[in-house]
């Protein structure tokens, strides 16, 4: 079965510091991978998706970037965090016309 690993589970970072969140998946090959962000009390917003190694599509202009160095690895990064980057970051895998499966997320607090 497909498994999504995200770490760390929680992270507190100061404004201006860099960020690297990692997502790895098991039990599948050549998956479509996604990064979503959830602000408190809100739904999920799609940030990036990737259909293959080195292929990144950005949905929302922002302070973040994504990379896919390996087939089952998806990384979310920032060079300098803003307060508004705080949120719950979720990695997902799946394709159109089937449900996306989500990891358990990373809660990021920027102070």
């Amino acid at each position: 079965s497909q498994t999504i690993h995200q770490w760390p589970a929680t992270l507190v970072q100061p404004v201006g510091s860099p960020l690297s969140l990692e997502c790895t998946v098991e039990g599948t090959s050549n998956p479509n991978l996604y990064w979503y962000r959830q602000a408190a009390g809100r739904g999920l917003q799609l940030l990036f998706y990737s259909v293959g190694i080195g292929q990144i599509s950005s949905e929302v202009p922002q302070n973040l970037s994504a990379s896919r160095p390996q087939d089952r690895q998806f990384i979310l990064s920032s060079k300098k965090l803003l307060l508004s980057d705080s949120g719950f970051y979720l990695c997902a895998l799946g394709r159109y016309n089937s449900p996306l499966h989500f990891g358990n997320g990373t809660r990021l607090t920027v102070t």
Partner: protein
Amino acid sequence: GESVGLHLPTLSVQEGDNSIINCAYSNSASDYFIWYKQESGKGPQFIIDIRSNMDKRQGQRVTVLLNKTVKHLSLQIAATQPGDSAVYFCAESPPPNTGTASKLTFGTGTRLQVTL
């Protein structure tokens, strides 16, 4: 958890009663719809889905109804249990212009509270 919020609509039901959670979607081109359950501090968990060529689909204790005319989706939970307490999200997806990537758009969510 991250699904907790001050402004989420809340539905309170007694254990054993049926629950109905409603959702209005926005994109008339959407042809695939999903309901997710999110517990505090966890990622969303798939409950049930429906395609636009159907207006009703049933699972174990859950039923999804789709009304494309008014762009409305509902989730019915039979015999609600304490373990059903969570935030519920609907999500919609239009067909991609190209490729297989999914572009799910999520609603803001409804908190379900089950009282004993």
